[in-house]
């Protein structure tokens, strides 16, 4: 049995236990207060909730299905694996759940300009989509390394009318895109809403993003009770910033019999330090502060942020959402990793035996199910969050497979 807690977090100061808070320049604090106030009023406003629910149903395509992966389960010879199909949401990933919610909030605050960061490009596409839907101006910051490896998503954002702003600083990936977005926000704070794409950053972002993503778990819980007549033994999700994982976990948090497993990017292995497994490498992953929140951060002994690596751009980030750090402290959720090659193998397996091309991010979660299912009884149930589809990753996969 897992420990559960009735306490609703975060607290007033935005803390989940020892993690969270607000560590940003003073200029931004009033904007965070404004966002919190807008969110608090929207949350209890039936008109806002109705508008959100309507868009989820008629535009995003919710509820997304829960698919029983029969051939995959059979081949692994153990637990029954169910896939929560966020890949079937409009734009092809869970990111749209948060983007639509925050775009409505931006409108409510009278902000006509949206900025966003993106790694895999899925949040950028979702932000551009929500902006087009609601008639907002959209600028997306993206590292040049990620632009090269997720080229199709760059075109998609441009087609949707967003401006993609290349970031060539630092590691040229998600971390640097967030730096650039924060600098833009500090400069244009009066007119602009920063649409942060994961459950990280300063309070109230981790909570807002969690709440908008928690529909994943709410649906999945209802669907598995219908499909299997019982709760799952395991919920598995990949963890970049942590939004698809917290979105799945949240509805199961009080179900003590359900194990929650987050899968980080193991890169080319923990020993060499070439990965983004913040929780699994005590040499590099320690509590610190990055992008406005106190959480586990990959850093060197002097507190400089470490370079990360993952085959999947969406998991290639040195910090993790603060609520995950707290769930880990509580031992309510457990965190492990899948290597680049394990994720690639899971990617190919899912293509061949289920006819589903997963995002490389999601393939990390599949890889964990592949490890665990065989030793579990056939009556056991696993839900894997299939956070996105893999069309964006075809170039990367072809290159890697050709090696």
């Amino acid at each position, binding site marked *: 049995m897992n420990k559960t807690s009735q306490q609703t977090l975060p607290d007033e*100061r935005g803390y989940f236990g020892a993690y969270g*808070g*607000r*560590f*940003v*320049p*003073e*200029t*931004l*604090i*009033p*904007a965070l207060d404004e966002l919190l106030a807008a969110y608090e009023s929207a949350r209890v406003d039936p008109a806002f909730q109705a508008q959100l629910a309507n868009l989820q149903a008629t535009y995003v395509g919710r509820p997304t299905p829960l698919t029983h992966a029969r051939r995959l389960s059979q081949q692994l010879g153990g637990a029954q694996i169910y896939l929560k199909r966020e890949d079937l949401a409009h734009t092809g990933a869970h990111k749209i759940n948060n983007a639509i919610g925050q775009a409505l909030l931006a409108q409510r605050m009278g902000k006509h300009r949206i900025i966003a960061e993106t790694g895999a490009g899925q949040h950028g596409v979702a932000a551009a989509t929500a902006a087009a839907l609601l008639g907002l101006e959209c600028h997306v910051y993206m590292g040049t390394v990620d632009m090269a490896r997720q080229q199709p998503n760059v075109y998609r954002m441009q087609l949707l009318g967003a401006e993609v702003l290349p970031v060539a*600083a*630092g590691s040229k990936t998600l*971390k*640097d895109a967030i*730096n650039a977005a*924060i*600098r833009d926000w*500090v*400069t*244009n*704070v*009066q007119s602009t809403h920063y649409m942060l794409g994961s459950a990280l950053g300063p309070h109230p972002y981790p909570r807002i993003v969690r709440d908008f993503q928690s529909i994943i778990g709410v649906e999945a819980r209802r669907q598995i009770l219908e499909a299997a007549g019982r709760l799952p033994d395991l919920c598995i999700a990949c963890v970049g910033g942590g939004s698809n994982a917290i979105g799945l976990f949240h509805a199961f948090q009080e179900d003590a019999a359900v194990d929650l497993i987050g899968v980080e990017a193991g890169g080319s292995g923990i020993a060499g330090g070439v990965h983004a497994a913040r929780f699994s490498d005590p040499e590099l992953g320690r509590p*610190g*502060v*990055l*992008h*406005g929140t106190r959480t586990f*951060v990959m*850093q060197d*002994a*002097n*507190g*400089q*942020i470490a370079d990360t690596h993952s085959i999947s751009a969406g998991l290639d980030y040195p910090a993790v959402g603060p609520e995950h750090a707290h769930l880990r402290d509580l031992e309510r959720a457990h965190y492990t990793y899948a290597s680049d090659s394990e994720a690639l193998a899971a990617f190919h397996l899912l293509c061949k035996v289920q006819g589903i091309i997963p995002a490389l991010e999601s393939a990390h979660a599949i890889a964990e199910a592949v490890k665990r299912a065989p030793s579990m009884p056939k009556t056991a149930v696993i839900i894997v969050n299939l956070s996105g589809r893999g069309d964006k990753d075809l170039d990367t996969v072809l290159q890697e497979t050709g090696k």
Partner: protein
Amino acid sequence: MTGVEHGLPAIAAMFAAARAAQRAAFLPYYPIGYPSYTESLDAIIALAELGADGFEIGVPFSDPLADGPVIQAATQTALANGITVRRCLDAVRELRLRGVMQPMLLMSYLNPLLAYGPAAFVRDAKAAGADGVIIPDLPVEEAAEWAAACRSHNFAQVLFVAPTSDAARIAAVAAQATGFIYLVSVTGVTGARTGLSADLAGFVARVRSRAGGIPLVLGFGISTAAHVRQIEQLTDGFIVGSALIKAAQGGVAGVRAFVTELRAP
């Protein structure tokens, strides 16, 4: 300033001297390790001789999210040169040995300081001869642990107010900041600007009326003699960073020429 204890007394003496001379204190920002460790110390010594009243000493960080391109590039160079928090404390110690008497406040993002340890950092920085700390990603709500450490060493904890800060936030900052309050002149990141904000006088007055007598220092964007003339009568001090670093590309001679021009009456 000989004989005055480092920390809050030295900073108070700096403002008193500037006030007596009817001018605002000039506090250049200079990062340790740019373009090299040795040259950064030479630049700071030159600035001390050119009449700087105090210093904001930059500690490099990999992800400086309140900084514009010039300071980003300079601090990336410093990191590539192996500069750490510890090395910056060495620099302060060496600058004291080489005769720099002015107050030195260390400016660092939070994470490198957390890695060092807040209490250990304040203790070691004070022992090295520094006078205070400036942390741009530490708002007043999160500053309690630092306040305690700074208080026990009579070390300044500078906090920020911005044009977006309301009356309640200004009052909260004024109640906790020591040494001075850092006024961010614009909503934005560091970097030279052609014109300063139109409502600068209004902003400074708004803070002044709630500051309870703590000195006000303006920074972000100040780069020309005209700017200095505009703010001299408003604030107790001003910080110049990006424009100075650009000038430092011309070595100590460049620094000299820039400061002479900046302080021209």
